[in-house]
């Protein structure tokens, strides 16, 4: 009886229909346990980053300099113990603290690079998709050229030209990712641009810029966001990879890839220096991949039943 009531109660039906697309996506996302797990890990990582920033500001970097940078050769390559749960690195620095502080650079560069790629790439894609014809041809042929150079190699060439530093690594990865997001934005705009509301906006006298960025972009955003979140994992790996090759974050800053470079020399005497930064990387990348998968399933209309 109760069941029948909820099914035929018009109030309940109304409520279901009133749910916005965003609320629907949130509901769908919540049902995906793996994606929620990913999100929780991401929030924890974010909390770690904020905590390290706060500690650095409050202690005026003295904690950072004392524990993360300062060397103590008596503890060189010390094995994990109660005092240093992950052991110490080749300069006797606590590995746990270096990994915790490394979170900031390892993750933020990767994430920031993707966001910059989208911010620069997406407008090109939107303009190409909206105007079509010659504009589209010129922009997309340029993007083809960018895409024809393998991602990591393009980033390496840019680092070679600019010099090795954290900022240059960020620039290199951002530029290398532009073409991918321009393509996605273009495809997504082409799906949306023939809708009635776009025509309505045009009839009301809206100019191209308003139409593109106020009416089309919000409706074309979902695929871009999905690809953005799915790309973060690869971007984090690229940061670690280039830092590992010595082309990214430089000594003595704490970054997971850079810690692993040093670990390589001592891998036989001290396995722990190789293991822990790698596990930190894997957990972060899996978290972002799960989150991205969940977001795709929640936002992709094809998969909705």
């Amino acid at each position, binding site marked *: 009886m109760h069941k029948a009531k909820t099914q035929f109660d018009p109030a309940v039906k109304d409520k279901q229909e009133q749910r916005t697309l965003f609320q629907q996506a949130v509901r769908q996302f919540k049902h995906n346990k793996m994606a929620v797990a990913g999100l929780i890990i991401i929030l924890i990582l974010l909390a770690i980053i904020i905590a390290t920033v706060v500690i650095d500001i409050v202690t005026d970097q003295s904690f950072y300099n004392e524990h993360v940078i300062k060397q103590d050769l008596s503890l060189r390559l010390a094995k994990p113990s109660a005092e240093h749960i992950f052991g110490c690195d080749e300069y006797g620095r606590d590995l746990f603290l270096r990994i915790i502080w490394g979170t900031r650079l390892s993750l933020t560069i990767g994430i920031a690079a993707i966001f910059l790629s989208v911010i620069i790439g997406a407008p090109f894609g939107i303009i190409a998709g909206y105007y079509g014809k010659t504009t589209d041809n010129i922009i997309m042929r340029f993007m083809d050229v960018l895409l024809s150079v393998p991602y990591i190699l393009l980033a390496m060439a840019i680092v070679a030209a600019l010099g090795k530093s954290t900022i240059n690594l960020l620039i290199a990865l951002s530029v290398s990712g532009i073409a991918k997001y321009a393509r996605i934005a273009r495809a997504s705009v082409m799906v949306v641009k023939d809708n009635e509301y776009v025509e309505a906006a045009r009839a009301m006298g809206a100019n191209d810029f308003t139409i593109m960025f106020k009416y089309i972009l919000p409706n074309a955003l979902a695929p871009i966001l999905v690809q953005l979140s799915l790309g973060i994992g690869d971007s984090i*790996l690229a940061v670690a990879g280039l830092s590992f090759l010595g082309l990214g974050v430089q000594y003595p800053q704490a970054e997971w890839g850079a810690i692993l470079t040093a670990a390589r020399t001592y891998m036989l005497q001290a396995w722990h220096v190789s293991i822990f930064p790698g596990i930190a990387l894997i957990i972060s990348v899996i978290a972002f991949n799960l989150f991205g998968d969940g977001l795709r399933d929640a936002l992709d209309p094809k998969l909705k039943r």
Partner: protein
Amino acid sequence: MARYIIKRILLAIPVLIGATFLVFTILFFTPSDPARMILGSSATEEAIEAMNEELGINDPFFVRYFNYMKGLVQGDMGRSYRNNSSVSETIAGRLGNTLILASAGMLFAIIIGIPVGILSAVKQYSKIDNATMFITLFLTAVPTFWYALILVIIFALKLHWLPASGMGVGLVPLLKSLILPTITLGSGYAAMIARTTRSSVLEVIRQDYIDTARAKGVSEKTVIWKHMLKNALIPIVTVVGLNFGSLLGGSVLTETIFSWPGVGRYVVDSISYRDTNAVLGSVVTLTILFTIVNLAVDIIYALIDPRIKSQYAVKRRKKHAQSENAV
């Protein structure tokens, strides 16, 4: 078919020219003093000036690009600033090693990835499927270089089964030295292929023609390998082709870790020495390789997808009809 292939090749040429221009422009801004690198710090100003003139460093940008391209089409990529050796010859000597490693990695990934993906799809939601999905999720998240370190620690340093680095001479030592780099390079790629194969087979598996084939009494083996896989293959080929670029990127890391004498390691070494010509030559070479693989993927599409083939066939028929009408 031939028209399609020719069209693809013609489309690739401007992209390649654009790519060389892009990489040349980026590296043009590298702050380096090649003449001093070649002649050493004791060289006189006049000698350096003369060397700069010889190298064409003082020429304007477009003249330098034009000269570079003129050399490139003749297979000349200039001289290394580090040791004055010919960049083309160095790369020619190393490209084979990169190709051996890249093909081994790709082969490993395909041989493991496709069957695992099919098995996972056919036995959807079984224990095998869940285990595969978990392992592939893990493998796509593992950093290549970390994975390599762990493999080296276990199989080379602890168990002494395989060499930790270098490239063996002779067939057996070569294969032995190839095992760890291949696994390093191919695992993530295999995971990606397995995941794509699974979802692609799952899409095909519920189609009516699969039921028809089964109802006809075709053996399950034939159903899977002939009816399912052939139709599920296009997304798989796309993933294999598109990710060949990241395979080449991965080979840069793999070659560096295993001291594999390939082009990837040459790039990394050359960047440290600010050897711009060598960096430029290597990146251009690997970009050409990437473009050729993408071209091959486009051609394979046409071979496995009759729709693409017929598109071109129809066009010709239409043209034929038009010309007949005109007559």
